[in-house]
C-alpha cells in the first residue's frame, strides 16, 4: 500500500496549500514559452511538458534582482536591503534534472560564505518533483549518472501511475512531509502500478570524459578549437542551464540614489574575464568553451564532488548553432576510447 495523489484532487491540494500560506509554482506555457510560474488553479499547470524551456534556477537565482538601494548624502550613505520576500513556496511538477541542479549549486553558494539570496529562497521552497515518463533526444540525465526519477534536490517525488490517474507519493524530506501533511486527507492509500519511466539512453561515458579532462596534456589540445569553431559566444547555454551560477553586479541609478543588482553573467561572453587593462585571460571562444566544460566536469566535481550538470540537455536543445555539452562529451568519449 502506498500513498496516492489523484490528479482530480489537485485543485483541492492547491486550495489547501494556498490556505496554509504557500505559493504554488509549476510548469506553465504562456506567451510562446514554457517556464515554472506561480499558479492559482491546477488548470493553469501544464504537467505534460517534457521539460520547461526555462529552468528552475529562475526561482532561486533570478536573471536580475535588486540587492539593495543606496542613497548618498554628504555625510552618510543609507542603504536598504532587498531580501527575497519571506513566502513559503511549493514547486509542483519540477523535473528531476532541474531539482538535482539546485542541490548541485547549494555547496557553491554556501562555500564558506552563504549567499543570502539563494539560501533564503531555498529554505522557503518545497520541491515536488514528478518523475519523467517521456524524454526527448536531448535529455541526458542518465549520462550524468542521474535518472528520470532522481531524488537529489527534491523534497517529494511523485511517480506517475500507469493509468495516468495520478501519482504515487514518495516523501523524501521533512520539509516535503510537512507540506504534504497539509493535504494528507486528500491522499489515498492504495496499491498502485506506476508508469514506466522515460527511456533515456546513455550518450557518453562520464568517467572517461573526466579522466580525459583531468589530463593536463589535453588542456591545450587542438580538439577545443575544432569543437568550438561554430560557437558564436552567446549566453544561451549558460542562461538556460539550471546549474550555471555565474553573475555580475550592476549599479543602476545616478550619483546619489540607485540600486545595486545581481545579474546573470556568462563565461561565454568575451567581456566576462576581460581586465580593465584590456588583457583577457580567456581571450578566445575556444578557451571560453573549454572553461565551461572543464568547470562543469572537472573543476566543480574536484571541489564539491558533484558534476555541475544535471543532464537536462537545454544547452544542446536551445543552442542557436547546434553545439552543446552532448556533442563535446561524445567527442571526448571517442577520443579517450
Amino acid at each position, binding site marked *: 500500500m502506498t500513498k496516492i495523489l489523484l490528479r482530480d484532487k489537485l485543485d483541492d491540494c492547491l486550495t489547501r496549500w494556498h490556505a496554509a500560506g504557500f505559493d504554488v509554482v509549476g510548469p506553465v506555457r504562456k506567451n510562446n*514559452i514554457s517556464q515554472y510560474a506561480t499558479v492559482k488553479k491546477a488548470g493553469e499547470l501544464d504537467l505534460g511538458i517534457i521539460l520547461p524551456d526555462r529552468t528552475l534556477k529562475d526561482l532561486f537565482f533570478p*536573471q536580475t534582482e535588486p540587492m539593495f538601494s543606496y542613497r548618498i548624502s554628504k555625510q552618510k550613505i543609507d542603504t536598504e536591503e532587498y531580501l527575497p520576500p519571506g513566502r513559503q513556496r511549493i514547486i509542483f511538477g519540477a523535473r528531476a534534472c532541474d531539482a538535482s541542479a539546485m542541490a548541485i549549486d547549494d555547496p557553491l553558494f554556501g562555500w564558506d560564505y552563504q549567499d543570502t539570496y539563494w539560501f533564503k529562497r531555498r529554505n522557503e521552497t518545497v520541491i515536488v518533483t514528478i518523475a519523467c515518463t517521456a524524454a526527448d533526444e536531448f535529455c541526458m540525465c542518465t549520462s550524468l549518472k542521474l535518472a528520470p526519477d532522481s531524488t537529489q534536490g527534491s523534497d517529494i517525488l511523485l511517480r506517475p501511475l500507469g493509468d495516468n490517474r495520478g501519482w504515487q507519493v514518495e516523501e523524501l524530506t521533512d520539509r516535503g512531509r510537512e507540506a504534504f501533511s497539509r493535504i494528507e486527507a486528500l491522499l489515498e492509500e492504495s496499491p498502485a502500478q506506476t508508469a514506466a519511466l522515460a527511456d533515456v539512453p546513455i550518450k557518453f561515458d562520464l568517467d572517461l570524459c573526466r579522466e580525459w579532462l583531468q589530463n593536463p596534456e589535453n588542456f591545450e589540445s587542438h580538439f577545443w578549437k575544432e569543437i568550438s569553431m561554430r560557437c*558564436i559566444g552567446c549566453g544561451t547555454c549558460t542562461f538556460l542551464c539550471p546549474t550555471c551560477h555565474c553573475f555580475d553586479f550592476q549599479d*543602476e541609478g545616478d550619483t546619489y540614489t540607485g540600486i545595486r543588482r545581481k545579474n546573470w553573467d556568462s563565461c561565454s561572453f568575451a567581456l566576462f574575464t576581460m581586465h580593465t587593462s584590456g588583457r583577457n585571460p580567456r581571450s578566445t571562444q575556444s578557451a571560453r568553451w573549454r572553461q565551461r566544460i572543464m568547470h562543469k566536469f572537472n573543476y566543480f566535481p574536484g571541489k564539491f564532488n558533484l558534476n555541475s550538470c544535471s543532464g537536462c540537455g537545454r544547452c544542446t536543445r536551445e543552442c542557436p548553432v547546434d553545439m552543446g555539452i552532448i556533442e563535446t562529451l561524445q567527442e571526448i568519449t571517442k577520443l579517450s576510447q
Partner: protein
Amino acid sequence: MSIQEQYRKKAAELLSSGEVKLVIGYGSGSTPDRRRALFARTADDAALFHVDAACDANLSGYLVNEGLLSDKKKIGIFLKPEGIRSVNILAAESQLDPDQIVILGFTEENGTVSGLQGTQASDFTSLMTALKENRTTSEKEQALVDKIEAMTPQERFAFWQAEFEKCIKCYACRQVCPMCYCKRCIVDNNQPQWVHTSSHTLGNFEWNLVRAFHLSGRCVECGGCDRACPVNIPLRLINRRMANEVLDAFDHFSGMNQNQEPVLASFKKDDPETFIL
C-alpha cells in the same frame, strides 16, 4: 546530379585545387532535421556537406571571425541570397574583402533547393535587383507586422512589453547576426552606460530597441536572430518593419552590392521630412 552532390564536388575541387583554404557550409546536426555549420579544410570533408531545405543559418557571420581572412587567402562559403546580401554589406562596411569570398550560392523555395549562378558577390547583382523588386519574403510575416501596426500605441507597447519581458539578455540575437560585428557592443560600454545591462523589462526594451536601430537598413532579414532567440521573441517582425521603413523612405534595400552606401551614413538633400515641425 542533385544540387547537394554538385556542390559537394565543387567544394571538394575548390579545396583540392588550393583555391580556397576553407569552405564553410552545412553538415548534419544533432537531430535529422538540424543542420550545423561545417568547416571543411580537405576535399574529404566536403563530402559531408548538406544542401537542403533544412540549411537555414546565414553563415556569413563566421567570415568576420577574428583573423580568419587576415592571411588574404580565399574562403568558400555556402550562402543563400540573404547571406550574399550580408557579404555585400560587410564589404561595403570594410569588414572584409569580397574578392576573398568564393560563394556557393543556393536558394530554397517550398522545400526545394536550387543552385545560383556565380561565385563572387558581384555576380549576383541581377538577383539582388529582382529581390528588391519582388520583396515578398513572407506574407505571413508582413501580415503580423500589419496587425501590430493596426494596434493603438498602447496596445503595441503592451505587445512588445510582454515579448521583451521574456528576454534574458543572452545576446544570442546579437552574436548570431552577421551585421553585429562590433568588438564592443554599445550595451557593453559602461562609460557612459547608455542602456541597462540588467534584464528587467526596461533594460530588455532598451536593448531590443538599440539592436533594432543599429540594424536598420543593414538587416538582410535572414531570420537568424529570430531562430536563435531561446525565449521566442518575434524579432523578425521589428527587423521587417525597419526594412520596410528604409525602403519606403529612402528606396534602400540592404546588401544590393558591395558599393552600396550605408543608409544611415548617407543622405539626400530631398529626403522626406514630413514629421519635422
